[in-house]
């Protein structure tokens, strides 16, 4: 069983949930994060999830699948997920691995990620054209 100190914190930022994944996340922590996020999306009615992986020095198949699963679960709960801050070395490795992170939208920074997740009721949100990521 995971101790509370081992769980990754989830911050509520308006209509968004922000998760900052530090390094050293082991598999059980990743599964706990999925659980916690799903619960929190339901509890808060959040419409957007921002996952900051700028602290991750590696993303392997397990973590990659976790990100895709989170995006899929969030979608079922009518929330969109954006993953931000992927490091170049991680991106290159994922390409070599052939892992495409299906269903996961990405942005360079938290700021750009937030522009992709407008609050409900705002058509298109506050996103200025130059803030839109490639998938917008």
């Amino acid at each position, binding site marked *: 069983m995971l101790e509370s100190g081992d769980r990754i914190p989830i911050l509520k930022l308006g209509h968004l949930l922000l998760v900052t994944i530090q390094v050293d996340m*082991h598999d059980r922590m990743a599964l706990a994060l999925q659980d916690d996020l799903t619960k929190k999306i339901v509890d808060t009615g959040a419409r957007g999830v921002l996952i900051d992986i700028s602290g991750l020095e*590696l993303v392997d198949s*397990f973590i990659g699948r976790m990100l895709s699963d989170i995006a899929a679960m969030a979608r079922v709960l009518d929330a969109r997920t954006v993953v931000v801050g992927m490091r170049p070395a*991680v991106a290159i490795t994922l390409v070599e*691995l052939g892992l495409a992170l299906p269903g996961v939208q990405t942005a360079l920074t938290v700021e750009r990620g937030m522009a992709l997740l407008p609050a409900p009721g705002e058509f298109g949100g506050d996103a200025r054209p130059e803030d839109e990521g490639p998938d917008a």
Partner: protein
Amino acid sequence: MRALTPEPHALDSDEDVVRARHVIRALAVDAGLRLIDQTKLVTAVSELARNTVIHGGGGRMLAEVLENGTRTGVCVTFEDEGPGIPDLEMALSQGFTTGEGLGLGFGGARRLVHDFDVTSAPGEGTRVRIVTWR
């Protein structure tokens, strides 16, 4: 942390997989690998260490820096006494699948390193040896 004979690192739990990443990252930095090669190697190690824990029923990792005259590299070996890989050919050729299965990460890990050797058979355990050269 560079021993003349590689010290074994236990691979029996999730935390061991994380520890393995750190050990190899440190070794890779020591050996002077470029950041991208370090990242690829450590990612491969993460995949293979996890395989050892989950599919091999636990095992060990041995790591060392190789200096073969002209080249320097990091060599990592994964060993377990588990059930072995039933269809090695298929496991190696597979990319990623969405289900469970040994193919997950195995074929991918191979693409991340320079040398990749695996010995395995049902009932005989598994031994995987990888090398990334500088």
